[in-house]
């Protein structure tokens, strides 16, 4: 494998740290628990899928006194079995509970990570409105109390309290637009993004009146969108980032969702072969940086500082190609990155997972040493 060897030598220059693992099944989920653990889960239909709680190699933790030879392996701390494909998984902060959503989509599954054994046990289910076809509920969790925001459409948006089982909020609208992402911003507000690109911010204390953009006109190619809001006090500038299946990336200020601050064309091969996998995330530890994936076997990091206007092509600050070059499989289909996630503390460290069941943890070297 000449190419792989070449890339490996290249990688000495490109990355500070690099780890590659092979799970027994691919995951679409990378959910952090603290800054040392991560959950992954299988998404094969008609099969028993595994949910795993993995501890990162100690080498990758924030620098602590860990002795001289931290091991390089992931440790499987806990594991559980799901009868259905797991498409989204959220951990409820400060609890041992997890909630998952998948297909068939008529319920959410609640799990508990056991304390005195290494098992993740299914404890209860939350019924959701039954949808036609392959729709499944998006999830977002609140941090103060164990509440879960879920819904496949705007009309089915609800917040359920896991302790009491009560539904504490309903959108109460008949608008059946499909959702692509949900994000809790604080105890009372959340953001949504529809697959049409329609974005909104909702205050749960009021009847439905979101701050939103008017949504894409039907003639805009019918492409799919996803979005993420930057959290934390990152200073002035764009808050909402929205990514489309044709490679368009829009940055918006939450105070004026109708007029994007900028709209650029990312350097990706388009259209995305599976737009459901589109993902855009803001870097928690870097100013004005975000990462995108879902177009091919790469993850791209962009610096949005100088972006403005509409339509300009942008180049990534860094592209992770590990999943393409380290592919161990029989080489039929090129692997597709299914999801990625930033390390909560280490500014340039990311996790990425691909359809060939690989999971990479990488810490890229900043080519400009500014970001």
């Amino acid at each position, binding site marked *: 494998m000449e190419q*792989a*060897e*070449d890339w*490996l*030598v290249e*990688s*000495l220059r490109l990355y500070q740290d*690099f*780890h*590659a*693992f*092979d*799970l*027994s099944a691919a995951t679409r989920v990378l959910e952090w628990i603290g800054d040392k653990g991560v959950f992954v889960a299988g998404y094969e239909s008609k099969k*028993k899928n*595994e949910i795993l709680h*993995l501890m990162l*190699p100690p080498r990758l933790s924030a620098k602590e006194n860990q*002795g*001289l*030879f931290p*091991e*390089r*392996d*992931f*440790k*499987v*701390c*806990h*594991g*559980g*079995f799901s009868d259905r494909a797991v498409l989204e998984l959220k951990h409820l902060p400060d609890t041992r509970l997890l909630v998952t959503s998948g297909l068939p989509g008529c319920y959410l599954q609640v799990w508990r990570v056991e304390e*005195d*054994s*290494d*098992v*993740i046990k299914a404890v209860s289910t939350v019924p959701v409105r039954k949808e036609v076809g392959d729709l499944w509920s998006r999830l977002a969790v609140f941090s103060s109390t164990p509440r879960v925001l879920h819904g496949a459409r705007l009309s089915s948006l609800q917040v359920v309290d896991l302790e009491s089982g009560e539904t504490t909020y309903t959108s109460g609208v008949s608008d059946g637009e499909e959702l692509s992402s949900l994000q809790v911003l604080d105890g009372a507000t959340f953001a949504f993004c529809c697959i049409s690109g329609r974005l909104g911010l909702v205050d749960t204390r009021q009847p439905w009146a979101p701050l939103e953009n008017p949504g894409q006109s039907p003639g805009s190619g019918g492409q799919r969108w996803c979005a993420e809001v930057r959290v934390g006090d990152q200073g002035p500038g764009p808050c909402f980032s929205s990514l489309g299946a044709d490679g368009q990336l829009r940055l918006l200020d939450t105070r004026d969702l109708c007029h994007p601050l900028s709209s650029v064309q990312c350097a990706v091969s388009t259209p995305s072969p599976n737009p459901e996998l589109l993902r855009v995330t803001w870097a928690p530890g870097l100013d004005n940086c975000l990462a995108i994936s879902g177009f091919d076997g790469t993850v791209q990091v962009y610096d949005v500082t100088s972006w403005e206007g509409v339509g300009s092509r942008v180049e990534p600050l860094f592209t992770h190609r590990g999943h393409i070059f*380290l592919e161990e499989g029989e080489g039929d289909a090129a692997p597709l990155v299914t999801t990625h996630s930033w390390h909560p503390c280490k500014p340039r460290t990311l996790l990425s997972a691909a359809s060939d069941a690989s999971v990479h943890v990488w810490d890229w070297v900043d080519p400009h040493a500014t970001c």
Partner: protein
Amino acid sequence: MGAGQDVGRSCILVSIAGKNVMLDCGMHMGFNDDRRFPDFSYITQNGRLTDFLDCVIISHFHLDHCGALPYFSEMVGYDGPIYMTHPTQAICPILLEDYRKIAVDKKGEANFFTSQMIKDCMKKVVAVHLHQTVQVDDELEIKAYYAGHVLGAAMFQIKVGSESVVYTGDYNMTPDRHLGAAWVDKCRPSLLISESTYATTIRDSKRCRERDFLKKVHETVERGGKVLIPVFALGRAQELCILLETFWERMNLKVPIYFSTGLTEKANHYYKLFITWTNQKIRKTFVQRNMFEFKHIKAFDRAFADNPGPMVVFATPGMLHAGQSLQIFRKWAGNEKNMVIMPGYCVQGTVGHKILSGQRKLEMEGRQVLEVKMQVEYMSFSAHADAKGIMQLVGQAEPDSVLLVHGEAKKMEFLRQKIEQEFRVSCYMPANGETVTLPTSPSIPVGISLGLLKREMAQGLLPEAKKLRLLHGTLIMKDSSFRLVSSEQALKELGLAEHQLRFTCRVHLQDTRKEQEMALRVYSHLKSTLQGHCVQHLPDGSVTVESILIQAAAHSEDPGTKVLLVSWTYQDEELGSFLTALLKKGLPQTPS
């Protein structure tokens, strides 16, 4: 495994169909006293071990699997056969001697085995080839399978009749640069005993480990430092050399790389001997040229250690406890630009172990203190099976049950469930000292008499290999033979008379006709009803259905009642009961 982590000591006792086999005889590397040896009193409180054990099997040369062997055979006392592969037989004594030297000479221990004991112990060894069935006695046989992991490591199948156990020792399911992957055929053992030290890990890819190694070496030589890599001749040295050679070629580096001559001689010698134990790539390389003929890697001369500028040196021994590697270490330790990369586990008492534990001031001979300023790194290339590997092996062997050793039960509940669900087998995880008993259903061969066989064949149905066939016969167990014979023959052999069981039932019917007429009517009724059976009217007035006899008689007190006596043998129970029920319903009114 790094310093400070517990390496298990392997020693498992298996009792199978009356045979007792000891699997491995390891040393616990963490202890300095008798706790490092297994507690052999578990085996038997009194009586000689040689009488109790049928054989001992050693899986590979690592000390945590063979370190207690001379103690066991010479100091506790065992004279039976010790089985291991040829490479293990060649390498074991070297490691044991090295270990003995460190323990006795360096640490001044008493109550340790001597050099002579190692030699005497090895005299009891019987070396085996891969896939060779070895008869330990007329009932017990063993067979070795390739395990990867290290040179000569094997997994063993132990078989007595239809019961068998496969013990993995340490194994690896992914091939690396110099060894292949473990492999076993679909031998379907009653039990598979698997190492599970790494069962709860998902291993970082080989490539990433190599990358890390290259990065460290590269960074050190870039800043003008020297890199010392202490190796055991038969460990990863070969692999690391190939790696560096490839990298140097690609990067067009000019920094010199050396290996000490002691290393090459030994390595060449052993690889030549055991070429079949390495993987395809190495074999190809070896056929083409000398194992250590590299473009960028040259033989080392002691004087080179004093040369200025960057360099990389591979030197023996691996734990820095003596010899050339220690000499070089002493020269380079004081410079922080330099680096030492330890590629394996170090035994307590060695310099390697001390620096891996974080010690930076070492007391050398003559009370000289050596300050260690060079960087100390540890690279673990050792290959063990992780969760994925264990699942693969279970899938290959298809055992009835699985037993996991050296894991922590609480931390492996998930793996246990996974194995049980995927393969539908029971999975056990015993603690040290715990006994696990497994029920097996052994198949017992039974001889069938020719007469009985002929009779069954005469029934006209051909025997089918996969279909179960019900046979009636008598099982005779005499001494240790089992025979299936026909009942008649059994009676004859045992000198018993056959008893006949006969049932008689009385059916009362209201009928004023005479007995003879009654009998005739019964005959007609049964003849028309029981079309498939042989119904006859005998001259004496009785009716027979097959061998069942029916006679009509008058009731002794009531002339209006007739009594039908129905009589049948044990064999005709079913038909007899049916007839009785039928007759109880009464005879048809219409005259036949």
